[in-house]
């Protein structure tokens, strides 16, 4: 397989040897970081957990003063931050197995569960396995549009997609519920690819997890504040909403900004490790920002590094990024990054544009990857 990338100065050709070389360089980088994991990374994740628990307790406590608007707002903010840290820098990363090497009770990919309605085991299947293994491969990676949105030109338009911006808005507001039902693959039920009976165990798990979350946020904690029941209920709902808006926005910046490429099943059927790495680099996008921004985004702002090394502790991504970027430059591969405003703007533009049939949209050519297989060129990602 030869991979060509169209850069500004025309196509860049990567020979199989170069792909191999790139893969080796990334393997070496991985090995170096892996060998260095230790006390520092352990201290880091525990510090984040302590901070998160601090915000959580503060948020719950502030609700007792919820009748005063500034305290109510502060409570919502604290609880929102707590849920964001829990879901992203802690939950997402721990459930990826990034801290499994610590062999710590509770802080590992088998035991950890996060503060959202989505059960950990279901998310691990659709995310760790389907999404991370088949990243941006059509009909394999269900994160391309999550079965409800048209987010890539490679998805064929139909009139349903006229509602694209509305679906996206609803998904944003109800994001934790969207993540929960993701594994049900409701669209496949409608298409008849999946049986209702397949859903039973999934629904059972979702019901169990969601009822615990609902009981906690919408019954028990409000009840504990007595006469402030409704204030607290509204505050907890607002905190969940804050988390939904934020996580949706960060996650959509990971694979959907302009320039990110998608692939077909045929193109990726037999892949070497080097080719897998190249696909991950082409299929992900980073967000520039401060250290605090990276922590609050669970380091998914280093989506490229995360997709190359999904099980390396996320606090290492900022250190690895310059080397990954240098490698991308060396081989002429794009390294998609930008400020949050640019990336999220580009995502929403795509959501609106792709609602329309192709003939109504003036297509702006984006650099595509040409994958040569059996000496036959097919163009994808355009």
């Amino acid at each position: 397989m030869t991979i060509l990338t169209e850069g500004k100065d025309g196509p860049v050709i990567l020979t199989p040897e170069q792909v191999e070389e790139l893969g080796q360089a990334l393997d070496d980088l991985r090995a170096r970081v892996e060998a260095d994991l230790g006390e520092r990374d352990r201290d880091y994740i525990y510090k984040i957990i302590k901070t998160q628990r601090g915000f959580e307790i503060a948020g719950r406590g502030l609700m007792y003063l919820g009748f005063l608007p500034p305290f109510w707002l502060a409570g919502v903010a604290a609880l929102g931050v707590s849920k964001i840290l829990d879901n992203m820098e802690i939950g997402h990363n721990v459930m990826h197995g990034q801290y499994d090497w610590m062999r710590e009770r509770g802080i590992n990919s088998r035991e950890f569960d996060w503060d959202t309605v989505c059960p950990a085991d279901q998310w691990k299947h659709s995310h760790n396995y389907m999404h991370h293994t088949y990243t941006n491969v059509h009909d394999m990676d269900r994160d391309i549009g999550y079965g409800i949105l048209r987010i890539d030109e490679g998805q064929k338009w139909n009139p349903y997609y006229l509602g694209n911006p509305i679906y996206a808005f609803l998904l944003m507001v109800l994001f934790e519920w969207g993540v929960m039902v993701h594994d049900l693959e409701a669209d496949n039920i409608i298409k008849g690819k999946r049986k209702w009976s397949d859903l039973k165990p999934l629904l059972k798990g979702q019901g169990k997890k969601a009822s615990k979350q609902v009981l906690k946020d919408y019954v028990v904690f409000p009840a504990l504040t007595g006469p402030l029941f409704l204030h607290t209920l509204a505050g907890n709902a607002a905190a969940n909403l804050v988390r939904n808006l934020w996580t949706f926005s960060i996650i959509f910046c990971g694979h959907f900004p302009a320039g990110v490429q998608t692939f077909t099943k045929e193109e990726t059927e037999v892949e070497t490790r080097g080719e897998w790495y190249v696909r991950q680099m082409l299929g992900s996008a980073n967000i520039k920002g401060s250290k605090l921004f990276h922590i609050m985004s669970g380091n998914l702002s280093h989506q490229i590094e995360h997709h190359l090394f999904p099980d390396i502790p996320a606090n290492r991504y900022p250190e690895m990024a310059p080397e990954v970027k240098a490698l991308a430059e060396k081989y002429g591969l794009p390294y998609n990054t930008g400020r949050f405003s640019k990336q999220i703007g580009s995502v929403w533009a795509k959501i609106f544009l792709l609602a329309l049939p192709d003939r109504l949209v003036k297509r702006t050519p984006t650099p595509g990857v040409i994958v040569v297989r059996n000496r036959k060129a097919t163009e994808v990602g355009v």
Partner: protein
Amino acid sequence: MVGLIDLVQTLTTPHPLDRYLELVSPALTARELRAEITHVSRAVPGSVTLTLRASRQWRGHSAGQYVQIGVSINGVRHTRCYSPIDPESRGDRFLQLTVKAHPGGLVSNYLHDHAEPGMVVDLAPAAGVFALPERRPDRVLLVSGGSGITPVLSMLRTLDAEGFTGEVTFLHYARQPEMVPHRAELTAIANRRPNFRVEYRYPVEPGTVIDGETSTGSGFFDYDELERVAPWFADAQTFVCGPPPLMRAVQTIFEAEGLADRVHSEEFTLTTVPADPAEATGTITFSSSDVAADNTGASLLEQAESAGLTPEYGCRMGICFSCTATKVSGCTRNLRTGELDADPDKQIQICVNTAVGDVDIAL
């Protein structure tokens, strides 16, 4: 109490209450067993004796049983088994461990060098069938070698504390007198109780040069020794813990005498030495399914499937961690990095690991 914890956990869900409490203080846990080191003694060279105060979940131990101690070393939690040396059922939450620093032993050396009062360790409830029977036998023979002294020391101290009136012989093998932990106490017991006999042996290894002469080895356990220290051994219950050659020697003699059912021993295996990774040898035991198969050198996932098992898996290339399983014992090699791993009780990705020699996987 349990009901109350469940109630509080409706507030901390999805995290267990202990995940909050441990951030306040590591020894403050509602469910999990932990222990705080309260006293450290390094009186005997090469070993350290720790006194621990367990959290309130501790249910004590039977003399001879072991506990698991977990400590974090350079960010990684390591767990090892140690036998408490104190008498059983003291009704309090204290336990004592003597840890010998083995050459290359990560945890034993760490505890020897770094254990200090205030340190909190993970603790697992006492386990193991190597223990004094509830109904004490009339005669008890205890044989130990090196750091194998710990479980039998607990037995001896238990019998002493109970005012045992039968006959007891304690026979211990060590390199030199000063390497015997708790020697003063052992001697004190022997002096106090005429029915307790305490004997030490310092065998000479074959090949040792003494006064210009190379010894062929002497002072090791044999039938004559047994007759000397416990002529009543045929009527006794015998408990042995020590290095494999000592255990073999005792077992061989008891088997020859037709007394195999009267000798109880505690395996005392050191970490498996990694074998040549190029050779696929040994047997893979899938202990949760009670299935075993000859190692073919393929990934453990493939071998499990060939053996008719259906373990959970995902990417089959070491990314998704769907297939992670517990390696109970043995040495494995990472197919991607070539790295060997001989740590027991470790979570491994079975799709990218293969067995090097005998391996036990909890599948």
